[in-house]
C-alpha cells in the first residue's frame, strides 16, 4: 500500500468533531453520573452490587471522555487500538497480579 493510499484511507476514517453544545451536554451527563456514584456510596447495598455498579458508572465516564472529549470516536481507528492496547494490558496484568495475591478473596 502506498503512502498516499494510506493517507487517503486514514482521512476517510476521520469524522467531524462534535459541536460545543454537544460537549456541554456530555459534561452534564458526566456530572449526573458522578452524582449517582456519590449517592450510591450512601445507599445500603451489598458490597458486590455496590462495586459492580460503581465500576460500571466509572466505565461509562471513562468511555464518554475518551470517545468524545479525546475524539477517539472520530479520529483514526489506529489511535483507538493503540490506546486500548495499553488499557487492556494494564487491566489484565494488574488483575492477574491482584488475583495471585488473593486481594479479592
Amino acid at each position, binding site marked *: 500500500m502506498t*503512502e498516499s493510499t*494510506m*493517507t*487517503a*484511507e*486514514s*482521512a476517510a476514517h*476521520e469524522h*467531524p*468533531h462534535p*459541536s*460545543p453544545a454537544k*460537549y*456541554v451536554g*456530555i*459534561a452534564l451527563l*458526566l*456530572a449526573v453520573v*458522578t452524582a449517582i*456514584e*456519590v449517592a*450510591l*456510596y450512601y445507599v445500603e447495598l451489598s*458490597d458486590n452490587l*455496590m*462495586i459492580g455498579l*460503581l*465500576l460500571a*458508572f*466509572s466505565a461509562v*465516564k*471513562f468511555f464518554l*471522555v*475518551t470517545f468524545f*472529549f*479525546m475524539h477517539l470516536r472520530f*479520529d*483514526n481507528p*489506529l*489511535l483507538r487500538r*493503540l*490506546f486500548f*492496547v*495499553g*488499557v487492556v*494490558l*494494564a*487491566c489484565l*496484568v*494488574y488483575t492477574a*497480579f*491482584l488475583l495471585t*495475591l488473593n*486481594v479479592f478473596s
Partner: protein
Amino acid sequence: MTMTEANVVTAHEEHTVTGISNRKLGMWAFLASECLFFGALISSYLLYRGKPAVSGPNPSDVYDIPFTSISSFVLLMSSLTMVLALAAIQRGDEQRLRLWLIATALLGSLFVGGQIYEFTTFAEEGLTLRSSVGGTAFFVLTGFHGAHVTGGILWMLSLVGISARGGLPKERSLDVEMAGLYWHFVDIVWIVIFTVVYLTPS
C-alpha cells in the same frame, strides 16, 4: 474554513505514512504506557489498603467523600473547558482559546489546592506517608496524579503565553490538541481513582 476542514489540514500537514501526525501518535503511545504506570499504583493501593496501620487511621477512615466529590466535579468540568479551548482554536478564535485555557488552568489549580487541603487534613488526623503501608500507597498514588495535574496546569499557562504573543494560529491547533489529550487522560485517571480508591468499600 470549517472546523472539519481545519481538523483534516492539521492532521495531514506532516504527510506521515499512517496519515496521523507523529506527535499525536507519540502522545497516544505515551498515554497507553501511562495506563500501566497508574495501574501499578492503583494495584499497590488495593493490595495494601486493608493492612493494619502501625499508627494512626487507615485511609478509608479519614476520607471526606462530599469534599472529594466536589473536587472530582471540578476536574470533570476542566475537561469541558479544555475541549472548548480546542474547538475555539479550530475556529480561529484566539481570544476564546485563551479564555478556556485560563479556565482550565484555574479549575486544575482548584483541584490541586483541594488535594493539598485534603493531604494536610489527613496528616492532622494521623494519616501520613509513614503511618501505614496503606497511607504510603494512597499518598504515592494521589500525589503522582496531583503532580500530573500540576504539569498540565503549567502546560496550559505556557499555551496562554504563546497565544498572547500571537504564536498559536489555528494552523497550530495540534499544539492545543496535544495538551488536551494529556489533560483528558489525567481526568480519566481521576475517574478511576475516585471510584476505586474513595468510593469502593474496603
